């Protein structure tokens, strides 16, 4: 539009994002050469690519967080799914050891038990160290720390299986207490699920904000080109011909914004990933993204572009329907 008035018209449709011109060859953004010459390159609101870039970047971070949380929860759940802890709570050390040995033997002969292992005294010491100090459990008489048996069941530790295990151990180790390991982490799993829903909600809000931004930009662009659109209509141009020009421009802007947003989002994910990796915690260590997650994240700019193009097309068609 700023070209000199006498300049040959062969240079357009130009775009200020030439690197993303390939997008116009995709089916949803394809425009016939003749259609592309009906209107000038529709400049949506100047910051449109940047708005889309911000939306995509935030969506990428939210999606990556949701996926990492899901992976961490799944990893913890599968690890703890068949996990059962048997505690022999008895003050007298010898009797406690006898019951623990008997319980271990019984568990190892139980068909529903995949593995059973008595937790060594050193590990017990490490577990209580934060509260009771170094090697507190070594003095068996002074501090009766329960004997622990770490059990892995075949399949999930359901209440029925726990009850059956209790009945079986009652005879050989009357002081045994049996708990499913997953039960301890239920509040954590709930919190993680809530965070995943929060991320999904954020993504939905960002998508809505993108739709509204595109709607406003489309209306603005329609207003700027109203005279030309009327002329094209009078010459027999169809709504779809005009809409194709708008959706093409939107495709270019959205693709440019999408690429920028993806890059920004990836940088943010890398920075956050490094921070969490430094924590060294078992739960955060499991919060990694698999190749399918990365594929999904890479698809976000494409989905954003399709959403923007569809929104532009539908809003332009709706506005054109109001003209005769």
């Amino acid at each position, binding site marked *: *539009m700023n070209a000199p*008035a*006498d*300049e*040959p*018209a062969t240079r357009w449709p130009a775009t200020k994002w030439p690197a993303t011109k390939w997008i116009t060859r995709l089916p949803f953004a394809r425009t*016939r*050469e*003749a*259609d592309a*010459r*009906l209107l*000038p390159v529709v400049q949506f609101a100047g910051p449109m690519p940047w708005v889309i870039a911000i939306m995509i970047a935030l969506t990428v971070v939210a999606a990556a967080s949701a996926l990492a949380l899901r992976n961490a929860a799944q990893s913890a759940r599968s690890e703890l799914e068949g996990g059962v802890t048997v505690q022999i709570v008895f003050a007298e050390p010898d009797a406690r050891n006898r019951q623990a040995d008997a319980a271990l033997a019984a568990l190892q002969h139980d068909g529903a038990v995949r593995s059973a292992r008595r937790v060594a005294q050193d590990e017990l010491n490490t577990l209580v160290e934060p509260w009771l100090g170094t090697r507190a459990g070594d003095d068996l008489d002074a501090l009766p720390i329960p004997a622990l048996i770490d059990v892995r069941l075949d399949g999930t530790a359901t209440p029925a299986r726990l009850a059956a295990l209790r009945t079986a151990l009652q005879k050989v180790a009357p002081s045994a207490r049996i708990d499913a390991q997953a039960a301890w982490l239920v509040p954590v799993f709930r919190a993680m699920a809530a965070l995943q829903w929060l991320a999904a909600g954020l993504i939905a809000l960002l998508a809505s904000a993108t739709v509204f931004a595109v709607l406003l930009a489309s209306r603005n662009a329609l207003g700027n080109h109203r*005279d*030309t659109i*009327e*002329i*094209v*209509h*009078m*010459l*027999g*141009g*169809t*709504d779809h*011909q005009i809409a194709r020009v708008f959706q093409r421009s939107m495709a270019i802007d959205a693709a440019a914004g999408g690429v920028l947003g993806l890059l920004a989002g990836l940088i943010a994910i890398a920075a956050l990933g490094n921070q969490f990796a430094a924590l060294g915690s078992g739960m955060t260590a499991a919060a990694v993204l698999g190749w399918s997650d990365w594929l999904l994240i890479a698809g976000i700019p494409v989905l954003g572009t399709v959403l923007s193009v569809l929104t532009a097309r539908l809003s332009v068609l709706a506005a054109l*329907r109001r003209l*005769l």
Partner: protein
Amino acid sequence: MKRKTGITCQFHDSAASMNQPDPEIVHFDNVGLRYGTDREVLSDVSFTLYPGRFYFLTGASGAGKTSLLKLLYLSQRPSRGLIRMFGTDAITLPRDRLPGFRRRLGVVFQDFRLVPHLSAFDNVALPLRVAGVSERDIARPVADMLDWVGLGDRRHARPATLSGGEQQRVAIARAVIARPDILIADEPTGNVDPDMAIKLLRLFESMNRLGTTVVVATHDLHLISSIQDSLIMRLDKGRLHDPTGALRYPPRRSGPAGQP
């Protein structure tokens, strides 16, 4: 370039058989038009346009000429009455069929309505591009048309750099490039010198001879008198005067269209 066949074939058939009445191309029956709640700008307008005829629309300023032309080129729907165009009720015509009808019309707007960001060449090529004609088939006829209206050397110029007369010639070239069935021109020679006015009128006449129905709104009596066999539609305060009934029942021609 493709040539639309529907009306043209009907026209040639009827011209070949002089005993058959000409099929009507446009029919207005008791048409009224008002903008908003104002008084009617057109009242009880009834007339019929036949293929291959040349019509002049005259009347004082404010008589309703431009409003009548807007109804003709389907940019406005009437408040009442019946309009048939190409044998179809144009009032109840679904929106998605309007482009097909509009492509059969060529319009020269009073204010030219050129697309400002397009060159003269692209403005003239616009109806062909809208109709889906390939770029290969566009270049030659558009260049020839621009040469014919004397703007061959201004093909890359944008409207803002053209004089009023040059813009009007581009507008006329755009209106006739697709060889429409009906050519509608609102004061088409208002901004050109007398020689160019006659030249443009001869272009309209040539198209008329090829079967295009021409409707020219003008105040210029000299222009009106220069076309033989033309019919005059005179509007006065929104009402069409047809004292002889020639607009409803035009005199039969003695030969093929356009040839006395």
